[in-house]
């Protein structure tokens, strides 16, 4: 069972982990990740660096995937590498992803879709994915939203998300923590991203501690955002279920199902 963890160092990264590595402005991604990459040889893992080629190319990087030069999606590329690693007898695939903001207009939200893809990839294949974000490149609200879609966290920066959405092992997404007015926008954005790629999204809410009216509105808005979509909330406590009904959201126009 995957569960959120705060890791003291990248040495603790384990099979199937999807780690958000938040770096200080002065930190160098290569320096801070060198041990993680080197441990690939120690444990028999294939290592892939995702980042701009000039930065990553060196003896440090056995295999570099530059998102700007990929013909297909990043997800397709890492899935290919994971399959190859399996064929070649490696234990697993280690992915170090140095995430840079997109400079193209209208593509600022693409990282979220990419992170959800990588989260699903790590959970499904057992790959170890470390996403390195530099404080020099990302502002705090963005980093908080980024943290929400990683079950694992390492780094000196104290960005602790109130809630996390991560891949559960049973074809669903676990929602844990607190979704209130401070995180409702991020929650809604994540849901829209999930619904854009799946007709039904299962949210496993057994460890969802708190869900307020703003969070519920975000859920309702996301659910009716696209046609022919459905959100299934499983394991939400009776207060969430009551508040959902009291809020007037328990109607056919809003395709959200509250399941036991």
């Amino acid at each position: 069972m995957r569960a959120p963890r705060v890791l003291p160092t990248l040495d603790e990264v384990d099979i199937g982990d999807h780690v958000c590595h938040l770096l200080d402005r002065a930190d160098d991604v290569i320096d801070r990740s060198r041990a993680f990459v080197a441990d690939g040889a120690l444990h028999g893992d294939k290592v892939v660096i995702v980042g701009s080629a000039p930065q990553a190319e060196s003896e440090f990087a056995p295999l570099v995937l530059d998102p700007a030069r990929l013909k297909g999606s990043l997800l397709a590329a890492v899935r290919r590498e994971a399959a190859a690693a399996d064929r070649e007898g490696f234990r697993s695939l280690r992915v170090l992803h140095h995430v840079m903001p997109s400079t193209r207009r209208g593509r600022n939200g693409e990282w979220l879709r990419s992170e959800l893809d990588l989260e699903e990839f790590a959970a499904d294949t057992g790959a170890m994915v470390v996403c390195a974000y530099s404080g020099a490149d990302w502002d705090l609200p963005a980093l908080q939203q980024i943290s929400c879609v990683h079950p694992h966290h390492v780094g000196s920066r104290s960005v602790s998300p109130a809630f996390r959405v991560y891949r559960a092992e049973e074809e669903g997404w676990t929602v844990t923590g607190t979704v209130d007015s401070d995180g409702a926008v991020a929650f809604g954005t994540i849901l829209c991203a999930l619904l854009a790629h799946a007709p039904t999204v299962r949210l496993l809410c057994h460890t969802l501690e708190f869900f307020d009216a703003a969070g519920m509105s975000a859920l309702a808005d996301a659910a009716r955002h696209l046609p022919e979509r459905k959100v299934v909330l499983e394991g939400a406590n009776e207060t969430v279920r009551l508040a959902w009904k009291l809020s007037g959201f328990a109607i056919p126009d809003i395709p959200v199902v509250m399941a036991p």
Partner: protein
Amino acid sequence: MTASSPTPLAGAGYRHELYPYSGSDEFVTGALDFIQEALDGDEAVVVAVPQEKASLLRAEIRENDIVRYVDTSGVARHPGRLIAAWQEWIKEHVSEGRPVRGIGESPWDEVRSAAEADELRYHEWLLNMAFAQGPAWWLLCPYDVARDKSALAEMARCHPEIRRDGRTVPCEDYDARAPYAFVALTDPCDPYEEFLYTSGDLPALREKIAACAQQHGLTGRRLRELHLAATEVASNSIRHGGGQGVLRTWGEDRRLVCEFRDAGYLRDPLAGRTMPTARQVGGRGLWLVHQLCDLVEIRSTPDEGTTIRLHTELPE
């Protein structure tokens, strides 16, 4: 303290009548007369009175398609839920285009506190505003003066009409332009806890409330509901009340009271008292607060800001 404008004006289609009576016989006589007038005029009747009073009327007039006795147990002692309840109770008849009469009496014998009594009277005053623009209907409010005559004048100030000697006459104590005269909030009971909150403090605020609640034995579902209500009120302080507020918590007469003060002004006295629509943007916070708490007191003026008290009954 007085309530804000707009002052409630009885709508052309809405009649709100106080019926002072003394004892069960007078209650039954007056209520049956009112029902019979409705039936003679082909009007529907909704009866929302305490169970024992309903039994007296049922013995005379059975429930049918025209006369309906509604279960008030979930709302009668929660003043903030009553306007929405009436909207729901009359909805079916209104949709058929049939004029509706209602008989509504609060269970005054069971009122737990002076605060609850005042909120019930405030609800009566708000009814005039809530239905001012709505469909035609006529609400009779029986009030037993044999139980307590002292509050009759306060009740009269909330009703545009009054029934005397079997006749409906204008109520002289009612002033459509006068604001509601609130009773001042009581002082917090000692000892009370205080916590200043601002953006980012909602988790800490919930922890403060949980600590106080646990001292008073409030846990589980009821604590989660209080957390939700408290979060909605505090979020309003942060977004609309000057960015911050002060929480006070204390125990009082087997209740946990959470008080929130901020610099904002709640312009609409009906906020949170009518059910939100599914497509409504925002406006659910106070609705949930009224639905989840046992009693809600709201005082708001442009000069003094807003004070909201949430009362939660403690387990025996």
